[in-house]
C-alpha cells in the first residue's frame, strides 16, 4: 500500500522542551534516588573485607546475637504498637465520623498534635510522666498518696511512644475510610430489621476493611523504622533503627549499617505492595449515587465516646504539657522554679539557637524547592501527551521513596555522595544535601497528592492549550498551577512541618555547622540536657502549629472571599484539601 509508512510526528517547540525536561528530570531522579540506593545495595551485598559479592555481611549480621536480637525486639515493638494504635484510633475515628459527640474539632486538633513534633518529644514527655522522676512515678512529687512505676525505659516506653506517634496517622486513614460509605446500606439493613451491633459487624467493618489493613501496615512500618522514640526511652532495649545509628555513627561500620538498612526496607516494601493492591481493589466501592451517613441520636453511645475521646485527648495534652512545663523549670524535680534558661541553650550540647534556625532555613528550602520540583514532576508524568516510556520511568522513580524509611535514605546518601570520586561530593555537608534528603524522603506522598490534584483537572485543558499553540510553560504557570494552588500550598506546609520534625535521614548527613534542631534534640538528650531538648521540641511544636494554623487561617479567608464568586470552587478546593490530607497520611516513614 502506498501510505503504509508510519509517519512520526515531528516535535513542536513544546514537545522538544518537554522531552528535554523529562530527560533532565529522569537524570535528577536517578542521581538523587537511583544511584544512592544502588550504593546502599552494593554496600550491603559486597563483603567489606574480601570485596566479594554475596551474603557474607548478612551472615555476619545474623551470627552476631547482639545485632540479630534487635529484629525480634523491633518486631515485638511494631506488633504491639500496631495492635494498640489501630484499636485506639479506630474508636476515636468512629466517634468523630459516626456519632454526635460535642467538640469534635477540638478532639480532632488534639489528636493531630503529635504530627507536629519530632518523635523524641513523645519520649521526653514520657520520661517526665513515667520516668524515674516522672509525675506519675513519684506520685506528683509526693503530693499524692499513691504513685506507680510502669518501668518506662525499654519496650514499654518505646511502645507507648510509638502509639502516640502512629495514633494521628492511623486516625487520619481510618477517618477517611469511615467517611466514605453508602448510607443506603444502613437503610436497607434497618428495613430488614438488622440490629445495630450486627450492622456494625456486617456493614461498617467490611466497608472499612481496606482502610484498617492499610492502617495496620502504616503503623507497623512507622514504628518499625522510627529512631527518635527508642533513642530516648529505649534504655538497653535495642531496635534496628538505633542499631543502624550505633553501627554507622558510633562505629562507622558501614556494611552492617547497610545490612540493617536492607532489613528496615522489608516492611515498607510489603506495605507499599499491599497499598497498591488495596487502592486498586477499593475503586468502585463508592459511587456518585452513594448517600452520606446520617448520624442518629444515641445518648449512651455519645456519652461513652465523649469520655473515651476526652481520655485520649487528655493523655496527649498532658504529655505535651509535661514537656512544656519541664522545659521551664530550673531543675526537675528538685527545683521547680520557673525559668526560661533552658531556652537559651547556652549550656547545651547543641549550638545555641542556631540548630533551630538551621531547621527553619532547611524546611523553608525544602518546602519551596520540594514543592516546585515534585509538582513539576507530577505534571510531567500526568499531563504530557507523548513520551509514555519516559513518563512511566519517572513515575516509577517517583514511587520508590514510598518504600524508603528516612534512615535508609540518609544512609544511601552518605554512601553515594561521600564517594571521593563523585563529582557531586561537594554537596556533602552542605544545606543542599539536607534539603535533597528531605525532598526525597517526602517525595512520593507529595507526588501522589500532586497527581491526585492534577487528575481532577480536565485533561482536555492541556490539549486545548496545545491545539491553540500556547507554550506549555504558559499553560503550566497560568492554568495548572493556579488551579492546583490548594494542593500546592498544602504540599508546602506538609514539607515544612515534616522537615522540621524529621531526624532519621538528617542524623547521618548534617554538616559541621548545619545541625538541624531535631538532631540537636537527639544530641542534647544524649548529653543528658533533657530540659534543653524539651525546650527545643517546644520551639518546633510552636513553630509548626503557627505555620499550620496560619495556613488554615489563610485558606479559610480565601474560601470566604471566593464563596462570593462561586460555591463550586470552594467545594473543589476543600475536596482537594481533604484528599491531600488523606494521602498525606502514610507520610513520614
Amino acid at each position, binding site marked *: 500500500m502506498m501510505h*503504509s509508512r508510519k509517519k*512520526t510526528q515531528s516535535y513542536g517547540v513544546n514537545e522538544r522542551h518537554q522531552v528535554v525536561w523529562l530527560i533532565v528530570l529522569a537524570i535528577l531522579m536517578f542521581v538523587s534516588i537511583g544511584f544512592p540506593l544502588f550504593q546502599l545495595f552494593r554496600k550491603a551485598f559486597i563483603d567489606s573485607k574480601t570485596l566479594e559479592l554475596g551474603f557474607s555481611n548478612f551472615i555476619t549480621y545474623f551470627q552476631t546475637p547482639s545485632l540479630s536480637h534487635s529484629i525480634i525486639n523491633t518486631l515485638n515493638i511494631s506488633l504491639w504498637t500496631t495492635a494498640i494504635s489501630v484499636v485506639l484510633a479506630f474508636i476515636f475515628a468512629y466517634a468523630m465520623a459516626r456519632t454526635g459527640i460535642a467538640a469534635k474539632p477540638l478532639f480532632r486538633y488534639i489528636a493531630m498534635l503529635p504530627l507536629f513534633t519530632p518523635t523524641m518529644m513523645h519520649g521526653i514527655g514520657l520520661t517526665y510522666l513515667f520516668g524515674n522522676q516522672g509525675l506519675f512515678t513519684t506520685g506528683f512529687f509526693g503530693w499524692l498518696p499513691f504513685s506507680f512505676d510502669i518501668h518506662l525505659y525499654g519496650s514499654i516506653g518505646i511502645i507507648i511512644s510509638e502509639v502516640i506517634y502512629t495514633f494521628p496517622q492511623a486516625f487520619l486513614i481510618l477517618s477517611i475510610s469511615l467517611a466514605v460509605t453508602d448510607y443506603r446500606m444502613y437503610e436497607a439493613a434497618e428495613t430488614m430489621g438488622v440490629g445495630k451491633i450486627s450492622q456494625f459487624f456486617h456493614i461498617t467493618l467490611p466497608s472499612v476493611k481496606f482502610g484498617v489493613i492499610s492502617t495496620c501496615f502504616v503503623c507497623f512500618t512507622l514504628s518499625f523504622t522510627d529512631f527518635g522514640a527508642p533513642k530516648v526511652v529505649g534504655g538497653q532495649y535495642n531496635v534496628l533503627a538505633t542499631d543502624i545509628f550505633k553501627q554507622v555513627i558510633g562505629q562507622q561500620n558501614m556494611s552492617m549499617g547497610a545490612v540493617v538498612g536492607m532489613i528496615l526496607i522489608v516492611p515498607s516494601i510489603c506495605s507499599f505492595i499491599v497499598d497498591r493492591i488495596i487502592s486498586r481493589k477499593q475503586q468502585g466501592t463508592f459511587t456518585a449515587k452513594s448517600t452520606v451517613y446520617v448520624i442518629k441520636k444515641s445518648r449512651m453511645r455519645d456519652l461513652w465516646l465523649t469520655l473515651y475521646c476526652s481520655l485520649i485527648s487528655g493523655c496527649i495534652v498532658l504529655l505535651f504539657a509535661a514537656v512544656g512545663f519541664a522545659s521551664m523549670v530550673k531543675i526537675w524535680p528538685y527545683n521547680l522554679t520557673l525559668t526560661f534558661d533552658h531556652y537559651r541553650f547556652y549550656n547545651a550540647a547543641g549550638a545555641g539557637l542556631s540548630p533551630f534556625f538551621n531547621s527553619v532555613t532547611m524546611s523553608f528550602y525544602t518546602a519551596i524547592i520540594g514543592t516546585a520540583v515534585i509538582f513539576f514532576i507530577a505534571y510531567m508524568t500526568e499531563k504530557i501527551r507523548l513520551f509514555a516510556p519516559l513518563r512511566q520511568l519517572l513515575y516509577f522513580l517517583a514511587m520508590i521513596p514510598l518504600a524508603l524509611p528516612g534512615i535508609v535514605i540518609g544512609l544511601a546518601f552518605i554512601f553515594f555522595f561521600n564517594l571521593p570520586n563523585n563529582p557531586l561530593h561537594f554537596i556533602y555537608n552542605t544545606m543542599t544535601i539536607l534539603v535533597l534528603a528531605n525532598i526525597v524522603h517526602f517525595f512520593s506522598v507529595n507526588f501522589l497528592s500532586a497527581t491526585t490534584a492534577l487528575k481532577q483537572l480536565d485533561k*482536555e*485543558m492541556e490539549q*486545548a492549550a496545545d*491545539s491553540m499553540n500556547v507554550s506549555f510553560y504558559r499553560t503550566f504557570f497560568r492554568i495548572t498551577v493556579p488551579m492546583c494552588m490548594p494542593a500546592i500550598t498544602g504540599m508546602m506546609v506538609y514539607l515544612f512541618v515534616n522537615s522540621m520534625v524529621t531526624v532519621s535521614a538528617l542524623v547521618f548527613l548534617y554538616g559541621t555547622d548545619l545541625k538541624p534542631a531535631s538532631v540537636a534534640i537527639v544530641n542534647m538528650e544524649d548529653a543528658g540536657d533533657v530540659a534543653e531538648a524539651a525546650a527545643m521540641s517546644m520551639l518546633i511544636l510552636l513553630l509548626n502549629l503557627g505555620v499550620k494554623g496560619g495556613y488554615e487561617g489563610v485558606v479559610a479567608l480565601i474560601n470566604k472571599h471566593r464563596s462570593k464568586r462561586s460555591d463550586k470552587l470552594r467545594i473543589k478546593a476543600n475536596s482537594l484539601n481533604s484528599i491531600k490530607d488523606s494521602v498525606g497520611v502514610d507520610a513520614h516513614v
Partner: protein
Amino acid sequence: MTSLPYLSIQHVTKTFGSFTALNDITVDVSKGQFTCLLGPSGCGKTTLMRIIAGLEQPDQGCVIVNGNDITSLPAGERNVGMVFQSYALFPNMSASQNIAFALKGKLSKSEITEKTKEMLDLVGLTHLKDRYPVQLSGGQQQRVALARAIALSPDFLLLDEPLSALDAKVRHKLRKELRELQEKLGITTIMVTHDQEEALTMADQIVVMNDAEIEQIGSPRDVYQVPASPFVADFIGSVNLIPLQDDRVMAIRPEYIQIQPSQVEGSVPAIVQQVEFRGIYSRVYLKLTNQAWVDKEVSVDVLDHDASHLNLARQSVVHLLMPERRLIHFT
C-alpha cells in the same frame, strides 16, 4: 468545482495495542463545508478527529490540508480551532481571559482586546465577559469555548460532541446558532457526534462510521434515504429490517408503511401488539402473520389523525402495505 478537496484524510489506520480504532479511513472535505463524523461510541470518530487535530498520530496514512501533508506537524502548528467535549475552559480565567489566552504573544495588546471583543460579540456574550466558567450556564460555556477556538482564525474548526453535555432545549437552540455562525464565517468544520438528529440537521456531509470503518459518506438526505448498509439504515432513524431469501435483507422505515383495515393488493397481514402515543404520530408495533415472515416484528408510524380511523386495539388484525419505491435492498 471538482478542484482538490480542502482537507483530505487518506488511508489512515490507528491501533491502540490490539484494539483497532481506525482501519484504512479515507475522507475528503471541501472548503467551507460542515462535516459530521457520526457513529456509536467506540467507532473511532473521536480518534479520527484527534488525528486531524494532531493530538494523536496515525499508524499509517496521512492528513493533507490544501495539498500539504501535515501528518507530521505537531498540534500547535496546524492552525486548527477545537472545541472539546468538556469545553476545557480554564476555570481560573474569566470568559474574556479565556478567549485572550491563546492570543497573547501572537497579537499586539490592542489587537487582543479588539479580537476578544469581536469574538464575544459574535457569540453574544459581551455582557458576561467577566464571568468565570462556573458562573456560566452550559450553553454559555459552550459559546465561550467556541469563541476561544475561532479567535485564532483557524483553517478549520473541530467540534468534539460540543452539544452532548447540554439539555435538550438548549441543544436544539445551539444547533441552529452554531450552524449559522459556521455559515457566516465560512469556516470548514468537522463535528463529532453520536446524535443522528444533530448530524442530519446540521451537516452538509455526514461520515457514518462503525467499528473503525466508514460505512457511508453522503449528504444527510442520502444517508437517510439511501443508506449504504443495514447499519446505516438502523443507526440513522428507525428502520424495519426484513430478511429475504438467500441472505438478502430488505429495509423500510416505519413512516413509509401504510396500515390498511382490510386486505389490498400486495398487503401482508399483521397483528397489533402495542401502540405508543408519541404526540403527532403513534408508533404501532405489529407481528407479521404471513408464511414467509411469521412472527417477524415490525413497527409502523401512523399520524395520530389517521390512527383514529383505524382499529388498532391489541390483537386486532390489520394489513400492511410496503410501497416498492420505499424499499431498500441490501445484499
